[in-house]
């Protein structure tokens, strides 16, 4: 046997016994998890509210900022109580909530069937997607002047703004939720003798409902924003209107109080839809 033939074999024999330094310690790794204990989570939630509040209190107590710019938390609380006692807060709240009910409700009534059709009917998707996809990028607030010209400064223009701001997004997100239904489930339903309308009503809709509610929850936040924007521009009632009033008299404490109310109502809407989602989508857990 020549050396040339023997060489490779020696290499092979040597290879398995790795001569490099052995790893000194076994490295342990932890999976990336996003969970913390329930107690920690509640603690962090409280901190998330209390820390900004404390910072606010500290800044206003330091006296370095003019209270006309940044009122103290207690001044804001007092202004809120004052407005609540005067009855105007309740009236404004009712006006704003009425608008969101009308505008968001209408948007849902239009977008859910439209999105459902886009997600289920072969021809509805290519027919609607381009138009809806483009319209979605037109900022609804930019339509305010046009809406006022078309519909005046009454309720109609505010409801229309809400519809414009919500309907396109909600349509596309509903269609997405509907398309999540597994093909197998649709096929099996057909073999069980269910007609297409029956499959749409008894299979697609229940399957997609939690996703549809999720879409609504996301878009309810946008709707709530649009109400206030609409009222800032032209209104004689509502939380947004109350802000512009307060601005005229430099009542920053009132502005802050209204902002807090707006935040709390938004949170309440979100929590309500979350609860609904959890109820409807119990099976998905």
């Amino acid at each position, binding site marked *: 046997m020549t050396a040339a033939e023997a060489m490779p074999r020696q290499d092979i024999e040597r290879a398995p016994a790795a001569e490099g330094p052995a790893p000194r310690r076994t490295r342990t790794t932890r999976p990336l998890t996003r969970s913390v204990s329930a107690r920690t989570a509640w603690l962090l939630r409280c901190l998330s509210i209390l820390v900004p509040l404390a910072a606010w209190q500290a800044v206003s107590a330091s006296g370095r900022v003019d209270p006309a710019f940044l009122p103290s938390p207690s001044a804001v609380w007092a202004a809120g109580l004052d407005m609540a006692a005067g009855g105007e807060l309740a009236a404004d709240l009712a006006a704003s909530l009425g608008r969101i009910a009308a505008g968001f409700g209408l948007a849902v009534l239009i977008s859910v069937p439209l999105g459902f059709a886009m997600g289920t009917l072969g021809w509805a998707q290519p027919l609607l997607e381009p138009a809806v996809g483009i319209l979605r990028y037109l900022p609804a607030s930019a339509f305010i002047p046009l809406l006022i010209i078309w519909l005046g400064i009454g309720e109609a223009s505010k409801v229309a703004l809400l519809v414009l701001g919500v309907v396109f997004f909600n349509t596309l997100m509903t269609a997405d939720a509907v398309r999540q239904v597994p093909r197998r489930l649709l*096929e099996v339903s057909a*073999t069980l*003798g269910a*007609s297409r309308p029956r499959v749409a009503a008894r299979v697609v809709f*229940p*399957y997609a409902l939690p996703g549809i509610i999720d879409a609504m929850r996301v878009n309810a936040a946008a709707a709530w924003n649009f109400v206030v924007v609409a009222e800032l521009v032209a209104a004689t009632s509502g939380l947004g209107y109350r802000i512009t009033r307060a601005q005229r008299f430099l009542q920053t404490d009132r502005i802050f109080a209204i902002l807090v109310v707006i935040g709390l109502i938004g949170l309440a809407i979100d929590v309500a839809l979350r609860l609904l989602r959890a109820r409807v989508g119990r099976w998905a*857990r």
Partner: protein
Amino acid sequence: MSGLRLEGVRKEFVPGRPVLQDVDLSVASGDFVCVVGASGSGKSTLLGMVAGLVPPTAGRVLLDGREVSGPGPDRGLVFQTASLYPWRTVAQNVAFGLEALGLPRAARRERVRWLLDEVGLGHLAGALPGRLSGGQQQRVAIARALACAPRVLLLDEPFGALDVQTKEDMQLFVRQVWQDVTPTGERPTVVMVTHDTEEAVFLARRVVVLSSDPGRISQEIVIDLPGPRPLEIRRSAEFLRIRAEVEDLVRAEHRAHQARLAAAPT
């Protein structure tokens, strides 16, 4: 003619590239046929065409002499994953087809209860599918298909995702279903796809071997074993002999396919 017939069936998803070609198959009413073949040989496509979900490119699928033109409750289908309605209870899942048929509520409830007792899931009637084990879910899926009293039961690798023990239970279960469990008292024709040759020989009265690319029926083996089959029959010489025969055929098909792939210009 009573039973299922495929006549010159061909399927192309891409024109000029048949997935199935010249498939002729007759399954007598009440027979149990297993289709074995390599992955991608077109087994699911074949079942899909019988179910009416996949239209054949050429040829015809006939059930009791009538051409199949779409899905219907006379042909029940069960996939590898149970595909249950997760928001419906077990009983409501089984009732789905009966609702579509327009059966009155009382009759529905009665048949569902009978079926769930037959498949041993009476105690889980009110449970949601998410709480069930894989084997239990497959039982529900089979019960759901059987509820409509189908003439043909189509099973597409129904136990492929189950552990060995559960799979064994389910095989006995399917044999029993085929022999006894029929709402109308008439035995359903079963066509089952599997890649497990032992399962095929154990369950079927006839095994059909599908070749690959394009899928054709290359062999049919009549399984000459007695009707009632205990699990131990798998260790009998006769069983092992038939199983080896089927395995050799599948292997030969696989080798031939590999050879064609290697020879084909890319």
